[in-house]
């Protein structure tokens, strides 16, 4: 579709875009992937430590330790976001700090902080899920589709 759009542009604009893109600084993809891998992995490593801590010190099993772990990670994210560190980690790590649950937490918390000046209802209330909302909408929708597929397979396929 992007290509089709490009074809409709006047030749001058097409030429300029080509000229421009030769001089545009590209995202360092390999470096970004590597950084995302390391930081993302490190966040998961911390999550694992927290899980293990809950299992050994409290009455949790491997299945039930997930919820308090997520809550703890989001609490840490809240502090990091509030004190202004998480956006710096995000600039360095990219997907590494955006994909884990901490990234989701950051998206909600950053919006909540930002829209405080517009009040609690129309500001924080309506904008808190501005960034995280699509994740929830399509997460729920994807789960619904998968559930239907599973049901059909189980009912008719006899798995």
């Amino acid at each position, binding site marked *: 579709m992007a290509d089709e759009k*490009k074809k409709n542009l006047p030749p001058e604009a097409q030429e*300029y875009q080509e000229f421009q893109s030769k001089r545009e600084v590209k995202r360092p993809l390999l470096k970004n992937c590597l950084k995302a891998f390391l930081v993302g992995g490190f966040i998961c490593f911390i999550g694992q430590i927290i899980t293990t801590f809950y299992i050994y010190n409290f009455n949790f099993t491997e299945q039930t330790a997930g919820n308090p772990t997520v809550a703890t990670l989001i609490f840490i994210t809240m502090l990091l*976001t509030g004190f202004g560190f998480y956006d710096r980690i995000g600039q360095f790590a990219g997907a590494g700090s955006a994909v884990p649950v901490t990234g989701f937490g*950051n998206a909600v918390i*950053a919006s909540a902080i930002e829209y405080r*000046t517009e009040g609690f209802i129309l500001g924080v209330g309506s904008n808190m899920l501005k960034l995280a909302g699509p994740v929830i909408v399509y997460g729920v929708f994807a789960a619904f589709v998968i559930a239907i597929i599973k049901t059909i397979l189980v009912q008719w396929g006899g798995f």
Partner: protein
Amino acid sequence: MLAGHQTWIFNNSPVILTTGTVGGPFEAKGNIPEAFDTLHDDMWLKQASFEKAQQKMMEEACQIAIKKSSIEIEQVQFFISGDLINQITPTSFAASTMGLPFFGLFSACATSMESLALSAAIINGNGANYILSGSSSHNAATEKQFRYPTEYGGQKPPTSQWTVTGAGCALVAKEGNGPKITSATIGKVVDMGMTDPFNMGGAMAAAAADTIETHLKERNVDPSYYDLIITGDLGHVGREVSLDYMHKRNISLEEKNYVDCGLTIYREGQPVLAGASGSACSAVVTYGHFLKQMAKGELKRILVVATGSLHSTLSIQQSDPIPCIAHAVSIESGSDNV
């Protein structure tokens, strides 16, 4: 007064009497802290919102410019200014505080020179004796409106730019001591179908090149006529693209005489990626830095080309391209003609 199709020559030479520049904490740590009359160490300026902080900066910049001059604010006929926030409310509130007749402008980051060109044109045509011309922007307020919440940890690409927190204002007068505004070229909107809001430099470069080319042609001067041709906020990408693009079109602009406000304001190592942007960028750097150099006699003639991307979040979400504009104003030192 009109030369060619889109250039004004100001025969009555309006002058920039005084200027006022205000910056934030990030600018204080930058490359040219001495360019600012006032630097704040608090992004909020003790106000309830970032937008109010921006309004306050605009008011302060105007007050400084008035204070430095020998006139009172009541003698000023018009306040011509704008900013990046929806419906330019910070500027409107600042105009309300100052109680001056007001022209509100929007040309995104090109507002500073649009305002200076209009001020000079009105004064040149005897429409006023004194005009306050300025523009302002605030990093957090702009990020919030155009991009993401400030604390959101999204990764920005190397082509993205850092919005300046500040306000710049020039007191333009019919006569007096100061650098003269000699001509202005009003730019056309240039749309090259660029769609990436994180690469505004690359999109605006075409507008800058178009306006500079037109200005040189219509004023019938060589690029070497100017000591410096100063672009507003093209950043690394836009500067290189526009320079190469002009070379391709046979404009013999030398690299050392082509500078960018967005690459002047911050120092190496500040996390600004491709450079600075924002409607305050060209205003504070021109009024605070380059005009000071001119006063010292280091520069005689400059052409300031402020560049703006005129998109909104709505137009980007609806997959429209980024329309760009550039306005050029030439400023020449007063002593040159004596």
